[in-house]
């Protein structure tokens, strides 16, 4: 698809104002997909592959980490656009850093496997495991906040810090990419952040949590006191 051909698509997409003050996405997923159908076949395939890698909703409860790492490597090799690869790497780095901080908080040791995650920082993190900020406070200034949220157990605040970090970076990147495929990917990633934030539902979360607890307990469920059900 010629670079100039992205103008129609990008101007047809409504502006995304803000993340946390949004009550709903500016465009439904159905309408967004209709607009994205303006993309060429190759771009559509790339976008689907990127979304499949970055969003785990379709994976169910069991996530095969090795398969994910392999999927990330394959995707990056097929993209052929350094700006896009950098963008994906940055998003994956957030995941790796967050996973490392959670592991550290849980008292785990540095991963023994060299390629224990994806992105570009996994090896660096492994060698700087003892540092409270994994030696990455310059690149990811939100790490101390994440540590604080993990320490105090504030899950919502932690989620907000991570979403805000991703939002800020994507907003910054959207200034650099106005009319190319990267701009389309950035828009979809921002849309997904808003969709994720606006879809948070306390009642649904409670039902999901109860479901997970029941499944984890399995046969032992009946042995618990009735008040704990």
């Amino acid at each position, binding site marked *: 698809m010629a670079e*100039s*051909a992205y*103008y*129609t*698509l*990008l*101007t*047809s*997409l*409504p*502006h995304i104002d803000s993340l946390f003050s949004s009550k709903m996405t500016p465009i439904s997923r159905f309408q967004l997909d209709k*607009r994205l159908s303006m993309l060429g076949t190759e771009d559509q395939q790339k976008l689907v592959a990127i979304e499949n890698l970055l969003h785990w909703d379709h994976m169910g409860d069991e996530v095969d980490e090795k398969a994910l790492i392999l999927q990330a490597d394959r995707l990056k090799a097929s993209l052929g656009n350094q700006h896009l690869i950098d963008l994906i790497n940055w998003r994956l780095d957030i995941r790796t850093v967050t996973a490392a901080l959670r592991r550290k908080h849980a008292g785990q040791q540095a991963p023994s496997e060299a390629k224990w995650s994806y992105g570009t920082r996994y090896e660096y993190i492994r060698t700087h495991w003892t540092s409270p900020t994994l030696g990455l406070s310059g690149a990811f200034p939100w790490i101390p906040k994440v540590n604080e949220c993990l320490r105090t157990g504030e899950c919502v605040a932690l989620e907000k810090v991570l979403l805000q970090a991703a939002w800020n970076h994507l907003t910054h990147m959207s200034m650099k990419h*106005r*009319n190319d495929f990267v701009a389309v990917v950035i828009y979809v990633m921002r849309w997904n952040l808003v969709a994720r934030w606006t879809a948070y539902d306390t009642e649904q979360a409670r039902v999901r949590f109860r479901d997970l607890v029941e499944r984890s307990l399995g046969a032992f469920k009946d042995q618990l006191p009735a008040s704990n059900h």
Partner: protein
Amino acid sequence: MEQLIIALGWVGVFAPVALGAVGSAIGCSVAGQAACGAMLDVESGYGKFVGVSAMPSSQVIYGIVIMFTLSGLGVALATAPGLFGIGLLTGIALMYSAIYQGQAVAASINASKNKPEVFGLSIAPAAIVEGFAVFAFVFALVMGQQIAG
């Protein structure tokens, strides 16, 4: 050699139109695509998007005027080098100004689609680019007269 010099003179005469047309085609295409996209996202005000997307067409008009002016001087051995220099460089200036004006218009359409009250102001960058095309146009005519002299 003389034939080559005369040929270059003709290149200079026609370059403003040809390159201006290339630039205007690209600029109007980019701005037009943005206008079409904006129409999918708004409920009214389509006319202003289509209207503003025609802004980069002015460069080819300037090119036509320059072509007639330069050709009126006559392509001869004495005038051909001057015609080539002025015509080709003016054509390049018109082409790039039309292309970038198209991008400025596309940005203007995108901004005013989301914030209709900034429509007038958002056209300012495109109007400034137009100013540079006018500079090239006016001074091509002025310099052309010096060739004749």
